């Protein structure tokens, strides 16, 4: 009879024990950090978190007297509905002053509408889905959009005198963005797209797709995968099939070549040209300082990448806000501050927020992988200064 009785009791007790309310510290700036610590982008999440934590570690001393920082980290497990629930709890229960983080565009897209309802500023430090800032007036993004990187590399490819291109991208929204951006850039530059493939998001094996590119013999191939282990897999296929030996140039955005993946991809990467907002090999005092701090904190093995720097800059912007307001600000004050914020010496060079779109304005670098004294380096060969997101200019908000 009482089987279910005991059971339910167990569940109830478990709930009671587990849910004892979190204690609240006085006089603190609470930042809810939503990140994908587990799931298929855990690596990116780790890089981003390291960047954020590093900035806090380095600059906590600079905070105005009496202001404490409380980072409440939550794992969205790479799932939008979980991320949405966490945001809801962070806003409604923990009463955070700011939301920050988010790797995945779907999660950001799920969270953004809540920030409009809860009137909480939301600092996106990665999620690159191009339209996300339009989902809420309280979203501001310090990372990048794929149009920002895909369009310039398309232009650049055309400028190399390459006439034909073949695009091959992962079959989901980000991939579609990259494809569209490159295509626009390349065709604007007078080039012609002779083929476009999309491979399934969960795809262990790229050889067949690379073979298709090889058969088509374009001047340049634009290969795009989300910045994960797929980058290695696809570059292996490129190497195995001797795509470049067949005289096909390969370009992509930095997603194909996160710095920490470079040693794993190995020499296969030499000569690869990508567009991006950051590479560890950038020679800038700000970057040198950043990397020094990074090595101090995480040792020589850990390699920073654009996720780390985006996280770092997100924190920098938040710190500037706190300093400017002594840690006491309303949502509107925060947004007003963010909209006009400028980061003159980010590791990735000067950056700023575009007041109109609340999206990042930054240099986009064309980088080429070279071997410098036995070590692979992603060297900046051309700088396209202060690029605004082209998509928003092509598709103005109604």
């Amino acid at each position, binding site marked *: 009879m009482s089987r279910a009785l005991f059971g339910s009791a167990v569940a109830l007790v478990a709930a009671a024990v587990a849910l004892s309310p979190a204690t609240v510290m006085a006089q603190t700036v609470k930042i809810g950090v939503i990140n994908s610590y587990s799931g298929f982008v855990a690596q990116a999440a780790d890089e981003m978190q390291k960047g954020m934590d590093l900035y806090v570690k380095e600059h906590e001393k600079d905070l105005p007297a009496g202001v404490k920082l409380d980072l409440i980290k939550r794992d969205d497990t790479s799932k939008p509905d979980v991320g949405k629930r966490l945001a809801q709890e962070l806003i409604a229960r923990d009463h955070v002053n700011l939301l920050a983080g988010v790797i995945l565009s779907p999660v950001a897209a799920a969270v953004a509408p809540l920030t409009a309802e809860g009137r909480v500023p939301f600092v996106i430090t990665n999620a690159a889905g191009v339209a996300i800032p339009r989902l809420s007036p309280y979203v501001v993004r310090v990372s990048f959009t794929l149009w920002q990187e895909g369009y310039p590399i398309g232009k650049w490819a055309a400028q190399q005198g390459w006439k034909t291109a073949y695009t091959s991208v992962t079959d989901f929204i980000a991939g579609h963005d990259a494809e569209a951006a490159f295509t626009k850039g390349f065709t604007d530059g007078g080039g012609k797209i002779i083929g476009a493939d999309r491979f399934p998001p969960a*795809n*262990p094996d790229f*050889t067949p797709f690379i*073979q298709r590119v090889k058969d088509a013999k374009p001047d340049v191939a634009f290969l795009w995968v989300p910045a994960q282990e797929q980058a290695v897999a696809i570059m292996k296929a490129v*190497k195995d*099939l001797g795509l470049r030996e067949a005289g096909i140039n390969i370009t992509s955005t930095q997603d194909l070549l996160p710095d920490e993946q470079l040693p794993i991809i190995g020499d296969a990467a030499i000569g690869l040209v990508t567009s991006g907002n950051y590479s560890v090999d950038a020679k800038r005092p700000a970057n040198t300082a950043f990397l020094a701090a990074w090595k101090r904190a995480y040792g020589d093995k850990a390699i920073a990448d654009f996720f780390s720097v985006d996280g770092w800059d997100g924190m920098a912007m938040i710190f500037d806000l706190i300093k400017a307001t002594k840690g006491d600000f309303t949502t509107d004050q925060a947004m007003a501050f963010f909209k006009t914020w400028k980061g003159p010496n980010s590791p990735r060079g000067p950056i700023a927020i575009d007041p109109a779109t609340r999206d990042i304005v930054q240099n986009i670098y064309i980088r080429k992988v070279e071997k410098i004294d036995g070590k692979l380096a992603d060297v900046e060969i051309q700088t396209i200064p202060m690029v605004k997101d082209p998509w928003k200019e092509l598709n103005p908000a109604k």
Partner: protein
Amino acid sequence: MAFSAGLSVVFHGVAFAMVLYLISVGLSVTMGMMGFVNLAHGVFAMAGGYVMTSLMNRYGVPLPLALGAAAAAVALASLPIERLLYRWLYGGDELDQVLLTMGLVFMSGATAQYLCGALQQPLRLPPGLNGGLHLGFGEVPAYDALLIASGAALVTVLWLGIERSRFGAKIRAAVDNLRMAQSVGIDTSRLFGLTFALGSGLAALGGGLGASLITITPGYALDNLVYFLIVVAIGGLGNIRGPFLAALLVGVADSTCKYLVPQFGAFLIYAMTMAILLWRPRGLFGRA
């Protein structure tokens, strides 16, 4: 061109198939003989990959040595796991088996991420194995060639072993009819342990050899589970040859479909599985 293109795609499919088979065959036998739903089988392949890559990258152990060591280590490690956790559930409720093995998958994933980070493990191949290899009929990726050669060798050894050796005879007997095997005095509990270890060792080999095809990450066991299950289901439970054909089918069909009709890449493999299972519910080689 078209010929050599098609060739390299099929060739690659076969290489992929070898990896799939090495990993899946153990699963097929455990499911067939012990009737155990071992969703954690991929963990052993993952472990193999991790051990091998870290031996190579951290201590510079040459590939063949590292591979052998990985297989041996995983096989040994699997013995206590089978004794302490699995054996209690033999012949038990398959749902308990699901719960146990999924639990192991979670734990191993977290452990892997804790020890080696979320980044996938690089496989630094000796220079000879990079790039292409010129065979009579055209150029093929050298590593794929190695995969196929070593895979074929292993398969032959395995099959001969199962056919000829006493141990193999016992395994076949137990798969055919467990009661009978017990009644003729086969120590099945010991047999289970050894078979389990053998399957795990093979999975480790597959995981190691295939580290460049199926990248070694904490999510490995879960992300690739479907592929392994498809191979076992199509091949038919509890036999050695079925999974081989199934793996070839999956591997080759997968890569050729993606080559010919990329827009339907993922659909076709599922459709094929569905069709085969509707046609032969017990798989191509399953006993009716």
